[in-house]
């Protein structure tokens, strides 16, 4: 394994250089265009185009009679391009929805392509062999001549995206606004679609018809988890695409039985899954942790509130309250209360041990604050919003955990530092004593 790693990345074998540079260019260029297709919610258009290029390739071959790569590419480009026009035509003129239109175009074009391809194969034309690299991809056998095509396309795509960055961004995020400021939205959409077709025509030769969609979609999806900024997303997607493509090429170099295209997709998917789980902020894990910690905070506040209410009831600050006593007042689990109390103990908001606890001075202030907000909010609802007093408790239960000190102050000033809530309970202030 290590030896093939060194062999591969020392680039002593010119074939390895071709494959690495080739897959790198394809990976990066399709990822860049893919960001826009994904943001425009047209991910599967790439899949449709990938299938739709086949009849163009075959017709180009039939008309031209030999396998000139540029003529084949042209054929592929034209039929891919027609396919998007047809999709739009169907969606705009009938009641058929986009998903079905995609499926129709994808499968009928591909069926026609297969018909033509099998027809060509049966004619016994010797130069036809290799046409099926448009079906399955041929990443492992990229040769020097291919690099010029791949390179040219990659450069063209990057230049176009760079030149029209502002326009593409606008039509991806807010086509209605773009229209309203007089931008020729349709035209830019057509340019963007044409670039997608171009990326697909080239990319398909690396991974094949079926997997092409992933080269467009997956890097963009992965990159989306890491950033909100579009240009950064594009750079990341290109990087992810490049890494996956080179890894795929390496795997099939180290284990020659292994196909390159599918491994590229597997690596891409793992990178996307990794991003989905571990990306900061948008990642699954970080969202889950945030949800858990806010749930824990709310519970702790509720425990403090309850302890404060118990003190309020009998006016005694110097006595421990047992967890059992608390459970009588609330529908909580013993273990979660105990865990919350231990966490509060660490923050010195309560004192005591195992079953018996009381508030510390800071804990008292905190519990009092929650109760205060709760009652202020209830009063606000009944006096300002004219809500019936028996309907205010539920929202107050939520708002007591949300309202921050500045808002609390405003609320207090608005209500003129009131003394009683709608249920005639006193509204406690920090300077008051129980």
């Amino acid at each position, binding site marked *: 394994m290590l030896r093939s790693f060194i062999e591969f990345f020392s680039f002593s074998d010119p074939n390895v250089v071709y494959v690495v540079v080739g897959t790198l260019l394809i990976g990066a260029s399709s990822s860049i265009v893919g960001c826009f297709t*994904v943001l425009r*919610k*047209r*991910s*599967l258009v*790439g*899949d449709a185009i990938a*299938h739709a290029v086949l009849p163009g390739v075959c017709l180009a071959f039939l008309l031209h009679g030999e396998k000139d790569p540029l003529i084949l590419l042209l054929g592929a480009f034209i039929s891919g391009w027609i396919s998007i026009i047809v999709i739009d035509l*169907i969606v705009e*003129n*009938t*009641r*058929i*929805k986009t*998903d*079905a239109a*995609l*499926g*129709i175009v*994808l*499968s*009928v*074009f*591909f*069926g*026609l*392509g*297969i*018909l*033509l*391809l*099998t*027809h060509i194969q*049966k*004619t016994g034309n010797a130069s036809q062999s290799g046409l099926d690299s448009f*079906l*399955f991809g041929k990443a492992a056998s990229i040769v020097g001549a291919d690099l010029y095509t791949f390179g040219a396309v990659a450069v063209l795509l990057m230049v176009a995206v760079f030149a029209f960055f502002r326009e593409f961004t606008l039509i991806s995020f807010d086509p209605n606004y773009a229209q309203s400021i007089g931008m020729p939205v349709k035209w830019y959409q057509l340019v963007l679609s044409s670039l997608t077709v171009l990326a697909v025509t080239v990319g398909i030769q690396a991974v094949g*018809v*079926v*997997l092409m*969609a*992933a080269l*467009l*979609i*997956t890097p*963009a*999806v992965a990159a989306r988890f890491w950033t909100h900024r579009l240009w950064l997303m594009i750079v990341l997607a290109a990087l992810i695409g490049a890494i996956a493509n080179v890894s795929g090429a390496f795997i099939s170099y180290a284990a020659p*039985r*292994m*196909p390159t*295209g*599918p*491994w590229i*997709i*597997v690596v891409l*998917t793992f990178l*996307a899954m990794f991003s*989905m789980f571990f990306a900061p902020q*948008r990642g*699954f894990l970080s969202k889950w942790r945030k949800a858990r910690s806010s749930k824990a905070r709310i519970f702790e506040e509720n425990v403090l509130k309850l302890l404060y209410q118990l003190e309020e009831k009998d006016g005694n600050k110097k006595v421990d309250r047992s967890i059992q006593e608390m459970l009588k007042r609330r529908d909580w689990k013993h273990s979660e209360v105990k865990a919350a109390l231990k966490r509060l103990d660490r923050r010195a908001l309560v004192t005591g041990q195992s079953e018996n606890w009381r508030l510390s001075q800071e804990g008292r202030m905190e519990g009092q604050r929650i109760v205060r907000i709760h009652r202020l909010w209830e009063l606000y609802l009944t006096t300002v919003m004219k809500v019936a007093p028996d309907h205010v408790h539920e929202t107050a239960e939520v708002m007591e955990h949300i309202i921050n000190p500045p808002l609390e102050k405003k609320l207090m000033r608005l209500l003129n530092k009131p003394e009683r809530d709608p249920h005639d309970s006193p509204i406690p202030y920090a300077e008051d004593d129980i």
Partner: protein
Amino acid sequence: MDFWFNDFWIILCGSLVAMSCAILGCFLILRKMAMVGDAISHSVLPGIVVAFFLSGSLSSWTVMLGATSLGLLTTFIIEMLNKRGGVQADAAIGLTFTFLFAVGVILIAANSGNLHIDQDCVLHGEIAYIPLDIGTTIAGIEIPRQAIILSVLFFVISTLVYLGYRGLFLTTFDPEYADAIGVKTTTWHYLLMAAVSLATVVSFESVGAILVVAFLIVPAATAYLLTDHFPSMLLLSCVVGILSSFTGYYLAVYLDGSIAGAISTMMGVFFSLAFLFAPKHGYLAKRLST
């Protein structure tokens, strides 16, 4: 006589696949799930390969079970990615099926010495060989194995749709109402997905993974342009499927090319005709009325 029978069996099998898929397709396109059907038809591949590896045959119960569970898994993963992972729906579909298909291809490559499925057959099937594989002989007539299997498939799917018509219909057209009167939307959803997976895997040998999509979507969409009455749509989609199998077969013979490809092409022709000339929803009717 032999030659005539060849034609007959191939057209019959083509029609059976077309009808089974068309019926399911009607529900798929009305539920806006056409591309989920596409995804399933690709992602059953690893299920087929693993089950084939375990059982040693392409048309065994293991393979059907393997593929159907993969089909259900696909729908489940797509929903998970979408609802829990925050991946938009279209991207979730693309992500899922490409990955599973890639895994399938890798499994084929890893066991290439032991398996006789290749990528070609994945893509366009071998409907032309159907008459060669005789299943049983009744009254001196040799009946191909696939003809029997595909008849069973058609029977199973039409029975399912007949018996579950109310549930499928309600959850397709008015899921909220269905929920309100206690019809389990999720159950019918997964049942439909299971049926699509089953249809895909059974049709796999004859028409291949990708062209199943044509059979699922195109006749149903054609029928959708021709009628507003759902039972008529089911019937019309079957008619389109049969017509396509018939004409497609002779187109393939004429061009000496793939039969499944030719049938899909003819479906495209019929769809184009409906697109242009459908009485109410067609292109010309709309243009002329405005």
